[in-house]
């Protein structure tokens, strides 16, 4: 096994260190915040940077680089020879890139907060919650055991909830609490519903270890039942229409850096759950739902796109866009083909980057112009050339334009549907129609993104914005870096394929 670099410590320690570093780092940030806001910022950034570096080492290390996995488990409950529950860390070609995504987004949103979140009350609390939020998500991603997965899955709601409630954009605390609570109720409910499925699985298979369950044979009827409960739970978190109702209020309420973690990272943990737990364990049972799930995903894609184009405000447009894009992921899963699931996994990472990129742009715009309403903006491209370029790259990418990254994920997702069509054979127009309709969704995406570009950056500058200039350098560097990654991944998708592909081989059983 050959990696890019050799690490002097055992690879699994990297993961343990990351998680511990984030948990204790969060505490230190809280303490540092008591004395100095700057200190809290610096410490939080350092903690996340450290976590990021550790995971990059993990990715380039011999195991993950050559398509293997790093596994470390301790018995949490039960005796060593017949464990009921384990606590473990799994680093492979799927979890490590997603962990890097989450840590990277966390780092960027903290850096973004240092210029964006002005007059922060209790900065220590804010930054430590951000760090803990990331910590919980990382815990979800490393999980080797269903119970561990869901403990972290629920834990991440605490910082998320407090961040929305305390730092929400509404002046009125009642409104803030209402939006935050709504978010919490829906996503917690989603978690609990999934947890119910976990217990059922435990009841049948007697274990909660994900890898053991994958090879366990679960009767199809039962797998079907458990599968639908799981999908309901993850569907709530993903915000599939009509379970998306929690998303618009909380996306509207959350400040941009928190929103990035919610939409760019948190929803991805649910998508990760589907790919890590539901599909491998229950693929036989799920086949019966493939067409239904496909329809739901398609409705989500179309509904999100239609709501996005009817928004008057950039932030809300992006929020609905995010809902619509998660429909693509689910569509990829629902094809139950190897290429579709691969595409969805690729798109999972892409959308995390792209959604955050566009939200960062919205935040930067708000900082300089004081508004995100379309009818108050216009003609800003010559005033903010860098930001305009970055936003346009992000928008075109989300609309599925090569050579940007999202195109790669999207064609793979649609190829999954095309493979379904081919497998169904002649005389089965259902999948053919699904394939074409799914591609139509990219057209609708292009419509609202291009219209937003036109309304924000082209035409005449409205009065009072003649002096608008490009954002602070830090934001330009962050967004520029992300745009660069988007282009690189689009030109050289092998960078990600080479990690994801081996992990997902055989995940859909033949396919």
């Amino acid at each position: 096994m050959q990696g890019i670099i050799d690490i002097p410590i055992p690879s699994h320690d990297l993961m343990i260190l990351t998680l511990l570093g984030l948990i204790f780092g969060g505490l230190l940030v809280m303490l540092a915040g008591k004395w100095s806001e700057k200190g809290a910022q610096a410490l939080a950034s350092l903690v996340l940077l450290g976590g990021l570096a550790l995971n990059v080492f993990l990715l380039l290390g011999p195991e993950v680089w050559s398509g293997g996995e790093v596994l470390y488990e301790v018995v949490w409950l039960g005796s060593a020879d017949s464990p009921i529950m384990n606590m473990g860390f799994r680093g492979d070609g799927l979890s490590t890139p997603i962990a890097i995504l989450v840590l990277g987004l966390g780092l960027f949103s903290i850096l973004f907060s240092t210029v964006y979140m002005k007059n922060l009350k209790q900065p220590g609390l804010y930054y430590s919650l951000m760090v803990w939020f990331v910590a919980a998500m990382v815990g979800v991603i490393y999980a080797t055991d269903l119970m561990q997965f869901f403990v972290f899955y629920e834990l991440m709601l605490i910082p998320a909830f407090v961040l929305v409630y305390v730092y929400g954009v509404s002046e009125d605390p009642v409104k803030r609490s209402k939006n935050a609570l709504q978010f919490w109720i829906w996503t917690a409910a989603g978690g609990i519903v999934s947890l119910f499925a976990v217990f059922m699985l435990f009841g049948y298979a007697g274990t909660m270890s994900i890898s053991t369950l994958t090879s366990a044979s679960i009767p199809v009827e039962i797998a079907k039942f458990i599968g639908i409960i799981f999908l309901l739970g993850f569907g709530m978190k993903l915000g599939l229409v009509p379970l998306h109702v929690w998303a618009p209020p909380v996306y509207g309420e959350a400040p941009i850096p928190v929103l990035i973690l919610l939409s760019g990272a948190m929803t991805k943990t649910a998508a990760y759950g589907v790919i890590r737990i539901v599909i491998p364990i229950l693929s036989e049972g799920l086949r019966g739902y493939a067409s239904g799930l496909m329809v739901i995903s398609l409705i989500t894609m179309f509904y999100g796109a239609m709501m996005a184009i009817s928004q008057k405000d950039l932030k809300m447009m992006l929020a609905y866009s995010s809902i619509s894009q998660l429909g693509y992921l689910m569509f990829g899963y629902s094809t139950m083909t190897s290429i579709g699931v691969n595409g969805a996994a690729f798109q999972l990472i892409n959308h995390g980057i792209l959604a955050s990129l566009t939200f960062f742009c919205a935040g930067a715009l708000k900082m300089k112009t004081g508004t995100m309403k379309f009818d108050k903006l216009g003609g800003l491209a010559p005033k903010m050339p860098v930001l305009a370029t970055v936003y346009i790259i992000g928008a075109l990418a989300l609309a599925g334009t090569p050579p940007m990254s999202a195109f790669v994920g999207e064609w793979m997702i649609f190829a999954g549907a095309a493979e379904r069509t081919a497998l169904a054979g002649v005389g089965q127009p259902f999948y053919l129609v699904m394939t074409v309709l799914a591609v139509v969704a990219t057209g609708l995406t292009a419509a609202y993104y291009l219209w937003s570009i036109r309304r924000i950056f082209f035409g005449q500058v409205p009065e009072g914005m003649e002096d608008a200039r490009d954002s602070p350098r830090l934001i330009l560097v962050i967004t520029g870096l992300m745009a660069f990654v988007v282009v690189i991944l689009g030109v050289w998708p092998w960078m990600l394929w080479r990690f994801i592909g081996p992990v997902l081989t055989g995940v859909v059983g033949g396919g």
Partner: protein
Amino acid sequence: MILPLELLGWLVFVVPIAGALFTPVFGKIHPTLREVMAVLVGFITAFLALDMVLDMLISPTSIDNNLITWVITAGIEVEFGVLIDPLSVLLACIAGGIGSLIILFSVGYMTGHDAEGNVVKDPSLTRYYFFMQFFVAGMILLVMANNMLMTFIGWEIVGMCSYALIGFWHNLKEPSPVPEYKTEGEYNAASGMKAFMVTRVGDIGLLAGILLLFFITGTFNYTEMLQTDAWAVGLFHLLPIVAILIFAGPIGKSAQFPLHIWLPEAMAGPTTVSALIHAAAMVKAGVYLVARIIPIFLEVMQTVPEMIVFFQTVAAIGAFTAFMAATMALVQDEIKKVLAYSTVSQLGYMFMALGATGLVAESVSAYAAGTFHLLAHALFKALLFLAAGSVLHAVQSKKMSDMGGIRKDMKVTFAAFTVGALSLAGVFPFVGFWSKELIFEALWLGGQYIIFLIAFITAILTAFYTFRMVGITFFGEKSEHIKSLESHGHHIHEAPPTMTIPLIILAVLAATGGILEIVFFGYFSGLETGALTHFDWAHLAPFALGITTIFTIAVWLVGITPAYLIYWRNKYDLSRFKDGFLYKFLWNRWYINALWYRIFVDGYLWLSNAIHARVESALLAFSGALSGGMDGVSRGWRRTMTGVLNTNVLGMMVGIIAFLLILIFL
């Protein structure tokens, strides 16, 4: 010849991509360096493409050079490679050669003068040169690609660049030419978006078609597709649908009915961009793709007779579009709009011929006609656009009614424009004559009399509107606009050499291009491998004249004479028709544009807003009411539990966690 062919196949698009990427760097150093480099990159690209053409002329061959194969998952491989054969090399040469002339022309064209006569450079020229080079690169990537997925990538890059370039002047403050927008900048931006969106509609079909075809053939690669024994035979009856889905892409990109509506608005960009879109790149992409897949589909038709639907669709859409666009061109006032509709119409000719390959016995003559017309059209349309740009640059107006009587002031431009016009009208011995003759012949001898009739009528209309345009622009009295310009001391004068040199080169090519026909046939007939050997090229006789030549002569007489009498001699006054229904019908583009806009833009927005107002709001209100109940609980707690940081809610969460922990440990 000078470089190995495999290397050339890569360099020819890598060089302009690199050129585009370095443009911002050079722009930072010095604006002139940026322009010199852009021109240099253009000519290097043209040189590389020409070198490939020479190789092909000496020894025609077909090379599939694959650089990388990525295996995504079992059975699904993505290739990154080039296919070098006469067709791809020809297109690369058109894109690179004409592209380079257009970039050279840009140096003069994108420079203006202010009131004091100082040179004014457009401030965002870095963006301009970046996208121009990227545009050429995307087009060449599209044609050189050895697989459909890579072609699609180039295809979309071209679309993206067209979006950026059509909307290039997005912040102009002058009033908009149409009442829907406030300023010209907004109109330009909207036009760019329209081009991108409308072509996107076609791309939806194309992408779905490519992916479906992949699962039928098991490959994206053009060469491998020809080995039809590997195909999934059980799925053959899906092929006609898949083929028509794929054809949706060319319909959009090559502006055929019903997606032709974007092309006239695409004139909002700088004239150089229009020339690039119409002559060298973009609209030719659709024709190329159809020409590329036709040999494959002809092969398939031997086992699946239903494939004929595809060829019928292509021919019918081509014929209808050719006629429709020619009628629209009759009434236009903007010189570039006339040229735009004429492009749509001429592309229709190409599709007529290509569609006929599956309908006539002598498929090679139809195929040769379609591809040769592609080359001919590239030459004379680039010439016409650049000459029109030269006029626009001098007259400072887009409208023909603002021109008139300038033939003496701009002799080179006038001569060049006339050569282009004669070629477009199909007059002997210009290149357009030969290519149109080939199309006529293929249709007539193949017994496709209905399509032939449409082609014939369209040719008459073409000759008429072309000479109407020449008459109004260069002959007659000088317009009020020019008189007022001249009274302000701005005399109409010939363009600088950077603009006239490309004109002269293109004019010579358009005048003598007919000779290329023999070269062209020889070029294909020497092939021994590859998709194009499907056709029996040796069977073709160059410079064949026959019964159809009589029709061509009839076209000159019936088409050009009235235009001469009406617009040069002013014998008849047609202005009374301006209130008639026919004029309005043509002026409003058969109302197709308005109808599509009403359905797909207004209708879609209306539906979205309605769902937003009724469904989404109701859902959110319902969910809000649910949590509102919970909020009451939380407020109740707040009264009892004082806490700065909403301890109550935190407490609730701690409770949940505790609950979970108890569940876990007990």
